[in-house]
């Protein structure tokens, strides 16, 4: 299946009640696929057909998500970089109001209108909050079409467990990529109770209010402390993959498509007797700091590969904390680095290491 379609199919199987969207390349297929499939295959809690709505803008769409999520529905929204920028208002409000939903960003090159070619330029936006105020989203970075499927389930699990918007940070290439996938059975993700949802106030309970307004600073600080506590708890969800790290001298760190390219470069390097390993962060937030910190004591150097000007490399440097040199290789603006380019970088680092021994 194609990445975008696999994602959409997974959303149906995850039992979404509603999807709100606005067309943008390279992920319009998600909206198109769901427009075709959702009416017959998804149901609301009252048994009526699931909701698919093409909104007037991403701003409208994300605020529809706010309303629907606040009313207790399982909701997904997807877009690409410029559209995700427009959604930041709603995402910040949902982080504060503690509403679960799944936001998918199939990134394209920027800044501005940029290009429709794949990029990883929204790492900062995704992992450091994105909108105003102190908040984070759990961020999952798929590197295959299978993970596009799996992370829809994982994304909803995290969103509902922690009552927060969660994000899948993919890129245009993954959205268009064709790969074999195993799909989970339909409706295999249980619905948690949402006693806080605004569904109409029965006499038996106090009214439910969904809000991000806490006008007294003492109360607002309390809410912030609650959020920070939640983000600390979320650290236990950290996920990453290690490839050939046991004997590695040079450690690559890369996520998503860059990780696939880096893995290819790793194989080429090993053919040349350069011992390279790879850490692939799967959750970008929480970030796999510990494994990178531990590895930094065992390797001579670290090379971070990204499709941007160097964003995740800042988190890698924080993890490495000066224990070894950290290098960066990146392409921008929709350009994808080739395994050979990464290999050249590895060879240059290797030559330097040789020299210094």
């Amino acid at each position, binding site marked *: 299946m194609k990445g975008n379609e696999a994602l959409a199919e997974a959303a149906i199987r995850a039992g979404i009640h509603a999807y709100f969207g606005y067309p943008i390349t390279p992920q319009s297929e998600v909206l198109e696929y769901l427009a075709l499939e959702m009416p017959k295959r998804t149901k*609301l809690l009252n048994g009526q057909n699931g909701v698919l*709505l093409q909104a007037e*803008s991403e701003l*409208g769409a994300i605020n529809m998500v706010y*309303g629907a999520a606040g*009313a207790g529905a399982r909701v997904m929204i997807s877009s690409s970089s410029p559209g995700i920028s427009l959604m930041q208002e709603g995402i910040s409000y949902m982080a504060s109001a503690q509403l679960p939903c799944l936001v998918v960003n199939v990134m394209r090159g920027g800044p501005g209108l940029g290009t429709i070619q794949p990029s990883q330029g929204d790492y900062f936006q995704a992992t450091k909050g994105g909108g105003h105020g102190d908040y984070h989203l759990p961020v999952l970075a798929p590197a295959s079409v299978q993970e596009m499927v799996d992370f829809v389930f994982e994304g909803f699990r995290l969103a509902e467990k922690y009552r927060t918007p969660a994000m899948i940070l993919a890129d245009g290439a993954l959205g268009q990529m064709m790969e074999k996938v195993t799909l989970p059975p339909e409706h295999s993700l249980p619905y948690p109770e949402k006693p806080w949802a605004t569904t*109409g106030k029965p006499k038996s309970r106090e009214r439910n209010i969904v809000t991000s*307004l806490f006008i007294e600073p003492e109360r607002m600080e309390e809410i912030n402390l609650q959020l920070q506590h939640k983000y600390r708890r979320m650290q236990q969800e950290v996920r990453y993959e290690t490839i050939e790290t046991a004997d590695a001298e040079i450690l690559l760190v890369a996520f998503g498509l860059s990780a696939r390219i880096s893995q290819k470069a790793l194989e080429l390097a090993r053919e040349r007797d350069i011992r390279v390993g790879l850490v692939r962060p799967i959750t970008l937030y929480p970030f796999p700091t510990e494994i990178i910190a531990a590895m930094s004591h065992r390797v001579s150097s670290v090379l971070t590969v990204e499709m941007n000007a160097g964003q995740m490399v800042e988190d890698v440097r924080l993890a490495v904390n000066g224990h070894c040199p950290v290098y960066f290789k990146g392409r921008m603006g929709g350009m994808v680095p080739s395994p050979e380019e990464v290999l050249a970088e590895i060879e240059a680092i290797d030559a330097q290491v040789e020299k210094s021994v």
Partner: protein
Amino acid sequence: MQEIAAAINGLELVWKKPATMTDTPMHYCPGCGHGVAHWLLMEVVQEMGIEENVIGVAPVGCSVFAYNYMNIDMQEAAHGRACAVATGIRRVLPDKFVFSYQGDGDLAAIGTGETIHAINRGENILIVFINNGIYGMTGGQMAPTTILGQVTSTTPFGRDVAQMGYPLKITDLVAHLPGAYYVTRQAVHTAAAVRKTKKAMQLGFEYQRRKKGASFIEIVSNCPSGWKLTPAEANDWMEKNMFPNYPLGDLKVPKE
């Protein structure tokens, strides 16, 4: 309390606070129309017996704390997004009643897009639009509905067409949309006006029950603080200056 009980002993009870209102004291300025509009809406909700099935959406504006006063489930929307939030709620809870309550800045400036499109889609929601011709909450700046010549803190020489364009008659505009089922313009400053507005709110919820599309009730109101007038002066000024620009009455009524 005992003093109050003694003072009212023997008097006829003519109005009782609906149970759909909380006991929280309102923060509105003396003479402000927001308070009256709130209790009217909640009175209608109670009388129609829909309090367990209604979800309200509060805006950003002076009525941002509407949910402190309305004893029902509510959501607080970002500035201007109430119609989108109401859409989201109503779409996933199609058997419930949903209303938005919005000021002129919220509905007709920053939220124009969300408003027009929700109505044009014929969302089954009731939109209560409080037009006081000013941004009350932020201290009296120009609103899209500020009338020509009106002095505000950002139009210190009066609103001038060359500079700021014309007052936006958003209600006239939405009445043209096929998704709008019922569009009316009312007030809440006299007993007679209150009765008409209440009737309009009942119709709005009734049409929603029948899934007829969007109902839109503009309430031409005041802002004594923002206008820098006493409550009585403000109501006079409203009648003399606002009503000619925003004449009261129905703009679109269903042919039934």
